[in-house]
């Protein structure tokens, strides 16, 4: 007969022991990648693991700005893949990046999407049309930490009839990553949102692209090995894998553009 108190402790310890037993023994590569890379990077990780038997890739997805903060705070990350040059530049300024390993590996297009059920008359056709009263709420990644939000903000400021970002002040719903914007639009909780073309392609039944946004600067994804990477050699091979034909094929399949364009 075990008393309830000890039974509880025994239960907790057993649970802890069981979970500890599943930890892998092989080398683990930690890759922090922009939220928009989720689906493509899952496949790339599998392909890379096939070439490196025994090694495992641990993927960590969030807004690029969030990932940057984790890295600055000392997270043991090997590879950082950001959705814009600016975030990678900031990581470099903070002395976090092994600059020689930095590669641009993909490009993308910013688009405005609407819920698929939106009637044709209510679909905005341009940035200026977002000011119409039929568009009540617009989801955008928080420009302070989400590159997609920053690209959108820059495009709005550059568009004719400037100060477009402030003009829409009351309509903004800030999201924590570009994928949250996608989710809000897909659920119909907002009337429009700024995401990448590759995100919109993942939910073709639930969202519709209203128009592509003319970016003031091209959407480009850089990746680099981090200076404090626990596995620098494996990390370098992962970054090279991204620009190699195998990596580029997978990225192209998910709709990413080659980095040069």
């Amino acid at each position, binding site marked *: 007969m075990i008393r309830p108190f000890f039974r509880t402790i025994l239960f907790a310890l057993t649970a802890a022991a069981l979970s500890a037993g599943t930890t892998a023994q092989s080398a683990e590569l930690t890759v922090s990648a922009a939220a928009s890379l989720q689906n493509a990077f899952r496949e790339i990780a599998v392909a890379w693991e096939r070439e490196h038997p025994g090694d495992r890739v641990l993927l960590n997805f969030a807004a690029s700005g969030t990932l*940057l903060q984790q890295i600055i705070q000392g997270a043991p990350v090997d590879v950082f893949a950001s959705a814009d040059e600016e975030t990678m530049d900031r990581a470099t300024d903070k002395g976090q990046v092994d600059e020689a390993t930095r590669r641009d590996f993909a490009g993308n297009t910013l688009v405005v999407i609407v819920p698929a059920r939106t009637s044709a008359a209510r679909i905005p056709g341009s940035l200026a049309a977002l000011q119409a009263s039929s568009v009540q709420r617009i989801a955008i990644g928080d420009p302070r930490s989400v590159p997609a939000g920053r690209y959108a903000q820059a495009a709005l400021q550059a568009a004719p009839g400037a100060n477009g970002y402030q003009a829409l002040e009351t309509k903004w719903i800030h999201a924590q990553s570009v994928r949250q914007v996608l989710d809000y639009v897909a659920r119909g909780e907002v009337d429009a949102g700024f995401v990448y073309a590759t995100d919109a392609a993942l939910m073709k039944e639930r969202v519709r692209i209203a128009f592509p946004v003319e970016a003031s600067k091209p959407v480009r994804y850089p990746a680099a090995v981090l200076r404090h990477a626990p596995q620098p050699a494996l990390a370098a091979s992962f970054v090279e894998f991204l620009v190699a034909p195998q990596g580029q094929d997978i990225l192209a399949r998910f709709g990413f553009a080659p980095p040069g364009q």
Partner: protein
Amino acid sequence: MESAWIALSLSLKVAGWATALNAVLGIGIAWALARWRFPGRELVDAILTLPMVLPPTVLGYYLLVLIGRNGPIGAFLQQHFGITLIFSFAGAVIAATIVALPLVLKSARAAFETIDPQFERAAKVLGLSPVAVFFRVTLPLARRGIVAGLLLAFARALGEFGATLMVAGSIPGRTQTLSIAVYEAVQAGQDATANLLVAVVSVTCILILLAVGRLTPTRQA
């Protein structure tokens, strides 16, 4: 700097509303659970306690699906009253209320159950109506437990993050509460803002816990 006080006052407003709603809902349900015998009584208690143990994301998802624009409750309110709960102050209050409910419910039920029923019976025999018995005998006797529960609920509502973020989003001045402002400041690398915000919320919570400590019956034993 100014945004910190906006976030604080918003948090206090949300927590205040949530506590007020819980004072009615929590005490009412706790009284029913303590005094009435009905089948499934413990099941009701368990379901209402769920928000305390469920991950906030699960709760946030339930709420998003239920009160979202396409959810059964959300669509109904939208069509008939033009009310949108998602991304609104009301949405933040609903999330905080549900998360904090178990704290009032549990302590109020325990407080009601420790009251000797003889007091209530005596009051009834002396001619008080059932409503008067509740407000003049039962409630005063259960006061300590209820107030402690309400204070804890206030603190929990003040700190609510996960479900609120999912349901109410993060709109400065409207739904961006203190805990969400902390999260955003840290993500954006604005440590100065984050420091100020966490100091404010920590001090507030310590004050509440001290108040709860003074009200907890075990102190006197």
